[in-house]
């Protein structure tokens, strides 16, 4: 027995530390359960396609004979895929190896024997919890048509439709919104149930002995009551006695209130949750993005910056605690959340890896206190992220630097510098201004020396920029972090260096293509 337990524990540790096994497990978890995983939607679409084709074949078969291929596809292929999915979901629902390891460490700590019975109980309970969940039961029933010889089981194909709830997020949103009004729906159902029960019994008592009445059984009375309270009123079963008609009036009036109450419940549930739904949609969208720029505050400069960055196809997320400014950002077509940029919680709620997904954070409130607070908050979460901040009052510069901002932009000083340059050399100033303008055809561009380019071009003399009518202003060397103006011909080019070039935008594009295409002979 001890040998078996040892083997079991060793195997659990092996699985837990196996990169291959954990990678596979994480992959299946992501594809089946993780809504933020970018490939999950393709899996969901595929499963929805299977469900809809299965139901289509069932409908087709009602009056016609489907081809054998369809039968095989429906009964074996789809069922098998669903079966595999069921097993995978059962596998990832809980980790057996973790339970074993936990029990082993627990027993080691307390110097007790390994409790195998506890492990079996715990694992069985975890797996049963999953097996008995509504979604898993639907999954299981959807596999049943596999036993197609039992014709009755074919009707279980319809359970496949319920599986749609798993794959279509809107269904899940719908049920989660309705779940917020559980108590109200329960109260309403109780009220309706009581009215149906009392009215059915009353109408049965009053009508059952009347030979002219179509209501002869309690079942017919309940049917009449439900048809009446729902305000459908088919008219196939009606109360004929005066007393029965009086009950009908009461049920009709109750029906109106039940209907009105139900409608208002739906509306209020959705109205209350609408902002939450939109917010979680933004968070989901953001989680899938890379190179995100977070703009803290949405005032005049932030608006202009966001507009320009969006035009350059940057991924922007605006955070601001003012609902008016956030509404304005949304109106401008930006992803925006009414979160306080100065709160750690705001960034936690985003569910993103700040180091990997966020490229820069721009503190653009026109208020130094807010910018210092936001910068400190961000720095407390991540030490390395690039933060750029506006400075509104020169006296606060040190405070911003102290809070960990990488780059400070003091617009007043910048205006002073512009004025100086403009009055000194207006022609040169306008030339540079035009080069920087996004509407100019002549541009200044940075060209990164990639490994591919470095493989074919070793020295500046090999660049051949003159043939493309492009001016090489200089090179930014990665190794020394310095800019070298007008480099000499035998300057070595290395991966990570940047060429700074000036020329017609089309020529530059052509030139970049040429550099990347070039292969060493």
């Amino acid at each position, binding site marked *: 027995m001890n040998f078996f337990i040892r083997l079991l524990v060793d195997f659990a540790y092996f699985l837990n530390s196996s990169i291959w096994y954990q990678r596979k497990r994480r992959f299946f978890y992501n594809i089946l359960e993780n809504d933020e995983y970018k490939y999950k939607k393709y899996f969901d679409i595929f499963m929805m396609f299977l469900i809809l084709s299965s139901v289509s074949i069932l409908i087709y078969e009602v009056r016609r004979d489907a081809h054998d291929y369809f039968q095989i596809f429906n009964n074996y292929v789809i069922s098998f895929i669903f079966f595999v999915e069921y097993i995978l979901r059962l596998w990832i629902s809980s980790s057996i190896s973790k339970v074993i390891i936990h029990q082993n460490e627990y027993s080691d700590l307390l110097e007790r024997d390994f409790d195998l019975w506890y492990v079996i109980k715990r694992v069985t309970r975890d797996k049963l919890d999953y097996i008995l969940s509504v979604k898993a039961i639907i999954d299981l029933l959807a596999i049943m048509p596999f036993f197609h010889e039992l014709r009755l089981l074919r009707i279980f194909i319809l359970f496949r439709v319920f599986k749609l709830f798993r794959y279509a997020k809107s269904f899940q949103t719908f049920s989660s919104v309705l779940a917020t009004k559980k108590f109200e729906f329960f109260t309403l159902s109780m009220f309706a149930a009581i009215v149906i029960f009392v009215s059915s019994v009353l109408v049965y008592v009053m009508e059952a002995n009347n030979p002219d009445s179509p209501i002869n059984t309690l079942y017919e009375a309940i049917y009449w009551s439900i048809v009446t309270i729902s305000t459908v009123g088919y008219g196939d079963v009606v109360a004929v006695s005066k007393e029965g008609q009086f009950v009908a009036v009461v049920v009709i009036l109750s029906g109106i209130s039940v209907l009105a109450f139900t409608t208002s419940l739906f509306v209020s549930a959705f109205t209350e949750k609408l902002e939450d739904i939109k917010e979680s949609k933004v968070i989901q969208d953001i989680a899938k993005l890379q190179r995100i720029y977070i703009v803290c505050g949405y005032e*005049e*400069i932030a608006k*202009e*910056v966001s507009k*320009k*960055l969006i035009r*350059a196809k*940057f991924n922007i997320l605006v955070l601001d605690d003012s609902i008016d400014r956030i509404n304005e950002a949304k109106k401008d077509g930006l992803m925006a959340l009414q979160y306080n940029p100065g709160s750690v919680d705001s960034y936690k709620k985003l569910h993103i890896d700040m180091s990997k997904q966020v*490229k820069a954070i721009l503190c*653009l409130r026109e208020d130094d206190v807010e910018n210092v607070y936001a910068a400190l908050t961000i720095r407390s979460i991540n030490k390395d992220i690039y933060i*750029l901040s506006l400075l509104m*009052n*020169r006296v606060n510069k040190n405070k911003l630097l102290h809070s960990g901002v990488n*780059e400070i*932009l003091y*617009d*007043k*000083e*910048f*205006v*002073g*510098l*512009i*004025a*100086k*340059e*403009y*009055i*000194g*050399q207006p*022609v*040169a*100033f306008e*030339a*540079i201004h*035009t*080069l*920087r303008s996004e509407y100019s*055809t*002549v541009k*200044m*561009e*940075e060209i990164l020396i990639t490994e591919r380019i470095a493989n074919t071009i070793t020295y500046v003399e090999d660049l051949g920029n*003159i043939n493309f*009518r*492009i*001016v*090489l*202003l*200089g090179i*930014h060397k990665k190794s020394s972090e310095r*800019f070298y*103006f*007008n480099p000499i011909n035998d300057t070595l080019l290395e991966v990570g260096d*940047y060429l*700074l070039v*000036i*020329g*017609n935008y089309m*020529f530059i594009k052509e030139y970049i293509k040429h550099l990347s295409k070039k292969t060493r002979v």
Partner: protein
Amino acid sequence: MKKTNALIFGYNEYGFEIAKNISNEYNNVIMFKLDENDDILYKNLNLTIESFDLSDDWSTLTQKYDLKDSIVFCSLEDVAKNIFLTISLRSAFKDLFIIALTNNNESANKLSMAGASKVIPIIETTANLITDMLKKPIITQVLHDILYEDSDLKIEQIKILNSEYFNEKYPADIEWSRDHGVLVISVTHEDGSSEFIYSSKTKHHLIKNGDIFTIVGYETDIKEFEKLVGVKDED
């Protein structure tokens, strides 16, 4: 454009930063306060501070300063007052060079219509700089150093006086960096039109006397180039 006086209307941080940056370029830098109750913020800066109002009476100003030899900065924080000041100055002095600051594009247009010679839209300019810093950080840094910092690398305007030196060549045909150690960015012709070197495959203009070259290079190379072909343009 070189003048003797710089008159800065607007006793605020923008005005102060302009005064600080241009004080070496002018003999007199005067800041004008519109509101007498303003706090005295910049008393330690050795600036001449005077008051003015929007009454359209510029006699005191003209008595003290030669406006033909002055450049004016309109940097009042109130946009409407700044526009009013600009239009008032333009109607009184037709040839005055006025640089006006503004917050948004709408008032930038109004300032141009009011007669400002050059408008600096603060928000757009700041936003452009932030965007450039994110999109092209290296270029932005290099240009910032060339334009605004005390770097060895300079940008200069050179007026061509010795076009014979180029022997009837087109700007795009000369290997500027190899021959002179400088790079020519653009050429502004006597008729006011300008073109970027290499901007198109067609060659439009031969180098002529009076052309203004915008060049980038080290100070010594620029001086050498200047000696060969012309003078530093400071008009």
